[in-house]
């Protein structure tokens, strides 16, 4: 299972980098979404996958060796929520940008550098 997820992480990073290098701002944002998902999966995978075990057993539990590590799950939940908030902001920014400048082309951004 881990190997499949690891490959998925790789594929998502590849797709993300490819999209980041496109000229359209919307595609750039899609690239960030891909990379953000890949990173979340990476964090989730970091403790290994334990199938079918609960993350919490309560205080009376005696065996702790079959416990799934709860920490990466908590981390991923936090990261997903933060990622969602940022995604909403950047989409709103993109919309505002489009309505002010009427362009979706990253090459048009050059002029602030002059």
């Amino acid at each position: 299972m881990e190997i499949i997820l690891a490959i998925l992480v790789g594929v998502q990073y590849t797709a993300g980098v490819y999209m980041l290098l496109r000229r359209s701002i919307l595609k750039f944002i899609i690239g960030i979404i891909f990379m953000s998902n890949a990173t979340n999966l990476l964090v989730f995978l970091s403790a290994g996958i334990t199938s079918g075990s609960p993350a919490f057993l309560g205080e009376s539990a005696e065996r702790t060796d079959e416990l799934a590590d709860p920490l990466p799950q908590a981390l991923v939940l936090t990261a997903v929520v933060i990622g969602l908030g940022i995604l909403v902001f950047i989409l709103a920014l993109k919309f505002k940008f489009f309505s002010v400048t009427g362009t979706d082309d990253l090459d048009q951004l050059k002029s602030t550098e002059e």
Partner: protein
Amino acid sequence: MNAVALPILIPLALMVLLIVIRSALLSRWTGVLGSMLMLVIAIYLFSHVNEYGILILQVGEWAAPFGITLVIDRLSSLMLLVTALLLLSISIYAIRFIGDKKEAPVFYIFFFSLAMGINGAFITGDVFNLYVWFEVMLLSSFVLISMGSTREQLKGGIKYVGLNLIGSLFFLAGIGLLYGKTGTLNMAHLAKILQYDEQSILMNSSAMLFFIAFGIKAAIFPLYFWLPASYHTPNITITSLFAGLLTKVGVYALIRFFTLFFVQDQVFWHNLLLVVAGLTMVIGGIAASTYYETRRILSYHIISQIGYMVMGLGIYTPLALAGAIYFIMHNMVAKTNAFLVSGLINRFMGSYRLKEVGGLYRQSPLLALLFIIPAFALAGVPPLSGFFAKFILIKAGIEASRFGITAVALITGLLTLYSMIKIWNEAFLKKLPENQEKDSPVVRIRFLDVLPSLILGLVTILMGVFAAPVFRYTMEAANGLLDPFIYIESVLNGIQP
């Protein structure tokens, strides 16, 4: 209950309060008084740490490696103090420079959420918690940088947001790998585990991810492109706020990580840090000398100065780290002040372009004085703070036989001096260009406009005059960083890994 969480809780409370307050006048008062309160807290924490040592708070009573730990050691308390000072002066500056009645309340809300993120990043003792504070800080800065929604601001905003988001992804990926290898994210616990790590090279993949993430935030050499692309677009108040604080959080995180637990493969990392530091200094300095617009010159100049801080970390002796900490403090104050004065020049002359301004020395000697303090401090003229900061770093470089980087640092000092003299000559000494209309209404500069610059200028002078006590304190902070035994033991409280 101790006061450790207050630098986070007070801005949070002020933020909530400001959301309710709609009036511009009230929100300005709240902003200034709230910043004063934060300064008082920072002074209290600073003196407490100075007297009794490290302050710890285990959030929610969860013992160390399991819960989130907040730690204030000497470095953190110093950063909190300087941050609070900058926040106060900028909250005063914003009264006159965020003129729009609708924008003022919004500005102060995100001003305090930025403050919360920065303070949180300085005092947390947990890697993932640091990520969360970075995100708080970034989201507020995203809003601030695109506030106003003009064409230029949105262009700068998109670049800023995009490149910083990529930095956050590196950070998160680094956390994932680090947790996979060590099974903990508490900094003190990590330090304890990695102290005796024998396969040191294994940690390099995580360390490199963190290095890139913090490098993007700190704007070091190959990763700085977002900074000059966006810092000149927003309101000058916001630029000053960012210039003094944001990049330094990245440098702080680098120092914390590479002194506390990424200490395995030292030869590789210190050489890398020194090469990056040298390139950052030179390229920032050269780029700054090619522009004729105050905000752009100062923006590139931020990058150049980041190089000195990284140089202190790369040399890695107590003296060098003390120099780096001194330099960070000096730079935060002087750089913010330089931006504030460039805002004043713009108010007086109506332009940031050096070709369009001139003759300010005759018109306003006060403004000239206000400019010359941070400019000379940045250039390293004695007896101002910058001279001692550079002197310590260069002395440390010579003592550690790192002659290459020391030479680069000295040459960059000349480039800095050149940039500052350029602003001085063009804006203050040169006559006003002929084609500029002379009967333009002269803007009266009020006391409130110059008060923040006066405060920061005074601090710069004091840091130079009282260099010995400041240096002694930074030296203690540096010793605390290089010998993290007390830090680890206070956090873990005797728990074995």
